[in-house]
């Protein structure tokens, strides 16, 4: 009978960082499930790009053509958004994209852990981008970089107000940049688990399993789009740092 109608497991349990060996306290050096899945993501990137392009064949193998599609896609994005002088930051942006893409994709394996659902992980990426872009902006343009906040086209009496708004929006960037990724992945995985809990009730199990299938497909899309969005916003911020005038 259906005496157990509440949630058997909590939908947020999947985001708990646990030590891999034993269950002691989690210190900064403890290998946890987050460490494991991040290492697996790096291993996938290495496997695809080192093993895949090792042959350097003129007619690419299947793995090599996948690697080439990734490379070409990100290269074109960097060139389109940041312009020709942004291309030398391409390796950095490619690294970001591949790490986030493979973390998101591996997290879709059932019973896996999603490193990008941890705000700690995405905040390191987001604030890393923020500091790097700010430093690049000052090194490349000197104090001219502050022109990003001082709109020369605006009427004089509006410029201080716009400057305040621009400064606030500049400092909110790393926060929204990192929380967008973590929030999207957390929300998606929690929704899947909520529907998985409904699957235990025999009456609505078929509808629930159909819903899980549909949401899983949506999550595959979200995983790709969020990696893309994170990367293209990095490109946009980089463009602002390289050309603060416009």
């Amino acid at each position, binding site marked *: 009978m259906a005496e157990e109608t509440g949630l058997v497991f909590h939908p947020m349990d999947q985001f708990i960082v646990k030590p891999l060996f034993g269950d002691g306290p989690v210190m900064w050096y403890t290998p946890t499930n987050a460490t494991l899945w991040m290492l697996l993501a790096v291993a996938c990137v290495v496997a695809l790009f080192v093993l895949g392009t090792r042959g350097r064949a003129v007619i690419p193998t299947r793995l090599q053509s996948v690697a080439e599609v990734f490379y070409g896609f990100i290269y074109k994005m960097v060139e389109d*958004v940041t312009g020709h002088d942004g291309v030398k930051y391409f390796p950095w942006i490619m690294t970001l994209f591949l790490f986030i893409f493979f973390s998101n994709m591996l997290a879709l394996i059932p019973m896996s852990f999603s490193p990008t659902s941890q705000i700690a992980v995405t905040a390191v990426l987001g604030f890393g981008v923020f500091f790097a872009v700010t430093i690049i902006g000052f090194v490349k343009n000197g104090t001219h970089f502050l022109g990003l906040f001082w709109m020369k086209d605006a009427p004089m009496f509006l410029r201080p107000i716009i400057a305040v708004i621009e400064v606030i929006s500049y400092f909110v960037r790393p926060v929204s940049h990192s*929380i*967008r990724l973590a*929030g999207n992945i957390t929300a998606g995985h929690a929704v899947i688990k909520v529907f998985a809990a409904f699957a235990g009730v025999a009456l609505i199990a078929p509808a629930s399993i159909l819903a899980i299938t549909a949401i899983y497909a949506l999550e595959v899309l979200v995983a790709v*789009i969020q990696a893309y969005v994170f990367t*293209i*916003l990095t490109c946009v911020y980089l463009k602002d740092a390289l050309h603060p005038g416009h």
Partner: protein
Amino acid sequence: MELAAAAALGKFIGAGIAAIGAGIAAVGVGNVAANYLAGALRNPSAAASQTATLFIGLAFAEALGIFAFLVALLLMFAA
């Protein structure tokens, strides 16, 4: 004792109110996509060059909904 019960209830009511923000962000995301589609159907040749802008706009609109979701989560699990 009653104060603790009211606080526990208020947490969930607050989380529910915060979730309204996520719904309103959905209107914003739909607005971005709808206007992109309307523009793309009028001038299909310019559509492909604007997909990057589309995704940036979607991301900005969606981020605020995610913030609302985050507030709901914080109220339910952290407060």
